[in-house]
């Protein structure tokens, strides 16, 4: 439609008068003059944030693992060159495994299993449609504990919209490859792929300006009436249906309740848009999209809109070519390099490109002051892949980085080697403790906590 909307999408903070009825999210966002930042300023109370950044198809391990001196000093390898300025802000963790990514009798489909198991620690059910099943992911487990403290319990991001058609990896539903976060065993959390949409989720459609308290409460009333109506509809229909058919309506009702809760939280928790920040413009190309997404993620953490996030830089098994860095072949095709040196070189180039974007993100987090330190100090950010070497499709010896100091609970700047096949889920348990979801006894195949990060 809407030449009109396109304009709205591109403009921001234009001071127009009160529009008749603004989209839902605007009703949740308080007027910009009245917000109070939720983040407080005493260091003790600074919130801790946790994020997971996913890159696909493994990495060239020999160009990823740092050389380590006797004293534990890292010399960063090729892929991690762009991270040198942040060397003291992250550790390379090597030796971890996500063992449920392995076939265990299910045959091909390592890409689907890699991403589906990465944060869930579960073995996804092999199905191309009916009965998808993985497990709750670590970020969502944390959200159950701390999600109600921020406007958004969690934020899911990706640079890849789901596949438009065709089947995905070897008989696995595409949901396994295009989602990292799972709210329950059969409810993947679909990520946002457009930075501008993310911005609107956080701050509303700021393009239409701000209107009066009266108009705002009237709008809230109208929206509540619609939520009440549809929620009533759903329960009436639900009563007419059997168990399996009713599952869809259960999803619907869960969604309604979630939104109602958000409306309630909005008044006290809505984030304040920092001065000088505006909605992202249209992006041009993959690198810009990635960086804008990292901007949005940093902004969400900065404004304490959420404390939990997952970001799929590119989906597992992605065959995206990278012509802008001289790689015209598809990423996945290249990853089956059969030890061809040219192909390995190109994989290293792609890995380095991804790491460069991550460096951009760390730079951003580090440039934002918080308390006596920086935003990065209060973060725990895992960067990694559910596949070790793309040519082998192994799910042990995974490439994993952990950035940030977790509010002073983590000592970065090291290469931490763990015994082969140490469950990655042990690391997750330690992170859950730190982020405010303590006491989880087991996650996936965890065998205990991994406190080597302290």
């Amino acid at each position: 439609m809407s030449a009109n909307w396109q304009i709205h999408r591109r403009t921001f903070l234009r001071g127009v008068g009160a529009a008749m009825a603004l989209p839902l999210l605007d009703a949740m966002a308080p007027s910009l003059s009245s917000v109070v930042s939720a983040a407080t300023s005493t260091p003790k109370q600074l919130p801790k944030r946790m994020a997971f950044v996913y890159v696909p198809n493994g990495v060239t391990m020999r160009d990823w693992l740092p050389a380590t001196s006797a004293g534990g000093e890292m010399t960063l390898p090729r892929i991690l060159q762009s991270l040198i300025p942040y060397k003291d802000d992250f550790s390379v963790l090597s030796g971890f495994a996500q063992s449920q990514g392995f076939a265990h009798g299910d045959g091909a489909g390592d890409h689907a299993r890699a991403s589906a198991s990465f944060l869930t620690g579960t073995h996804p059910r092999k199905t191309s449609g009916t009965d998808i099943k993985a497990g709750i992911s670590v970020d969502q487990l944390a959200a159950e504990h701390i999600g109600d403290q921020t406007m958004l319990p969690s934020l899911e991001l990706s640079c890849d919209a789901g596949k438009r058609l065709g089947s995905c990896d070897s008989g696995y539903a595409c949901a396994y490859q295009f989602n990292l976060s799972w709210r329950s065993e059969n409810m993947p959390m679909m990520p946002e792929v457009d930075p501008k949409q993310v911005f609107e989720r956080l701050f509303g459609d700021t393009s239409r300006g701000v209107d009066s308290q009266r108009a705002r409460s009237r709008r809230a009333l109208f929206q509540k009436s619609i939520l009440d109506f549809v929620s009533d509809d759903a329960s009436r229909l639900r009563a007419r249906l059997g168990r399996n058919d009713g599952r869809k309506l259960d999803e619907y009702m869960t969604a309604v309740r979630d939104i109602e809760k958000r409306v309630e939280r909005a008044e006290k928790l809505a984030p304040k848009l920092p001065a000088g920040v505006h909605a992202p413009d249209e992006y041009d190309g993959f690198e810009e999209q990635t960086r804008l997404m990292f901007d949005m993620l940093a902004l969400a953490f900065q404004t304490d809109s959420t404390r939990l996030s997952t970001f799929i830089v590119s989906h597992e098994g992605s065959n995206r070519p990278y012509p802008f860095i001289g790689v015209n072949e598809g990423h996945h095709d290249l990853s089956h390099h059969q030890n061809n040196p040219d192909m390995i070189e190109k994989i290293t180039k792609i890995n380095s490109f991804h790491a460069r974007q991550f460096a951009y993100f760390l730079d951003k987090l580090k440039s934002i002051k918080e308390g006596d330190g920086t935003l990065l100090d209060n973060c725990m950010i895992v960067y990694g892949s559910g596949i070790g070497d793309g040519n082998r499709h192994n799910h042990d010896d995974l490439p994993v980085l952990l950035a940030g100091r977790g509010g002073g609970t983590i000592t970065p700047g090291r290469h931490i080697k763990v015994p082969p096949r140490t469950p990655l889920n042990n690391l997750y348990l330690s992170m859950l403790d730190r982020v405010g979801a303590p006491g989880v006894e087991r996650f996936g195949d965890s065998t205990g906590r991994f406190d080597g990060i302290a």
Partner: protein
Amino acid sequence: MRFVVISLSALLGLSPAAVASPDMSADFQTKTLPLLKRYCYECHGDGASSGDLDMDRFKTLADIRGDKPTVAKIIRYARTQVMPPPDAEKALSLADRDALADALMVQLYDLDPKHPDPGPMVLRRLNQTEYRNTIRDLTGVSFDPALDFPQDDTGYGFDNIADVLTLPPMLLEKYLKAADKIMEEAIPPADNPKKKMTEPMRKLFVRYAGQRAASTTQPVNFDSNVARAILTDFARRGWRRPPRRDEIDRLLKLYDLARRNDETFHGSIRHAMKAVIVSPSFLFRGDVSADPARNVRPVSEYELATRLSYFLWSTMPDDELLDLASRNLLRRSLDAQVKRMVASPKAHGFVENFAGQWLQFRNLDAAHPDGKKFEIYDDRLRDSMRRETEMFFESILKDDRNPLEILTADYTFVNGRLAKFYGIPNVDPGMREFKRVSLEGTKRRGILTQASILTLTSNPTRTSPVKRGKWVLESLLGVAPPPPPPDIPALESGKQLTGSLRQRTEQHRADPNCASCHAPMDPIGFGLENFDAIGRWRDSDGPDKIDASSSFTDGSKFNGPGELVELLARTRQNDFYRALTEAAMTYALGRGVEPYDQPAIDRITAQLRKPDAKFSTLLIGVIDSAPFQMRRADNFQRTASLNGMMNSVASRSDDHRHPGETP
């Protein structure tokens, strides 16, 4: 087009059948067992148990039903021609293969065509395409969800599969936002007096509130009965069924609330309409009508109208379909309605969404031919390629041709650009419109040689015989290669492969671990090697001369794309018809096909094999089938005859058994 009116009494004859009829047991002994002995025992019987499979234990019908997973695997391996392997003593003929697989299906799952199980009733959320089209037809607003909504997940190769179309909270939020935008476009706010209502809204207001109210959005006064009439009509179309009284009462409450809060008449209607298009009754389709206590029953006429409409049009039923449903006349008019629907421009939805996903050309945008190597490839050429395949499929649909022509047609559709690209003479290179041209005298025949398909099955810098072979097997022949054996050795130890692309591919295949899957796949790709990675004809690939000859494991040989296409059309017809039928069923039902769908699929496939088969044979076959026409009742219970198959889908069937539930 002749519609076979299904006999409801036949479909509803639900007296429980006898458990494992003696006939079936005897059939297993006299027909199936000898085939197993003849073709499988060399390695899996008489004491041999290669791959830990010992068939000596399958002596009776009860034995195979006792190990469904293994027998299901045997059926799949036979169908996909993975077994018997190329070096087996006795090659399995295609006729024997079909006889064996069909019989085992019936025996394993106790299928009884006389007492069909239509499968579970599923609620399907509208996917992005359906939402966009439905909003367009209902409100007159063109809204593109692709800009706002998260991408739908796909399953079984389609994006309209009920189970994977989930509704996370974020999406409901988007629906709420979208409803605001859409309804304010349909009925513009009064503070924007220049904007007019959309056509469907105007008509609605004319009908119930008169001309004056339809030509303005400024304050007017009407009795709430007028609002009730407008909302009832809107909800009926939006929910694809007559709204119940309590539903309308609740909509009226929304209207009243807005009125009490100083909203105009138009604005208050708009407010209630927003609720209509966020309601689960709008977002989900499925038969939720109250239910008599019967095992299976026909779906309501409204639900049938909805199924038909989304199947053939990817959008909501129009007034004619709803009207027939309201008078209970739709089942009796199916023949004429299907004909009308196929002729409608809306049938393009079927081409784009069914064919586009089945054959994958809807995804051509995702192919990224290397810009340096293929300078000629640009967005316009890509769009021309896709348009060619769309028009080609649409002509087979609308001219009601035999579906096998998808494979063999000696004609296609080109514009000037594409004609030049293909080297087809006598077409003005500047011509923008497409026209039908003969392929006589060219080396192209059918879909396999169209540039769209050849491009989307290539890598960015080169062709991929494996991808092309896999595409043909999966899409056209419905025989997805099984996954590699679980203990396949890692490739890391492998030495670097050398030589031409073909030589490298063959080296890979020489590895016995790879051969069983690559043997049926790679030759097809070799036969298409004369087409480069964007579908241009070539005689050599760099220094290597193209060798487009190859052979299949059954010994049949071919040289070049022409012979390959001819060979596939002649020997693999049954596979093609089955693949097409299964794809159409999956798309129409919004779920994967299951063993209980087998009788319907067998029947349609058999009809397609007849010499006078047409495309409508397929459409009518699907629409006529039990899974499309019927639903399990809420209190569906296993009858004796259903026992066998229910065990195979135990986890789901349990969900459908609610003996205590009253309708």
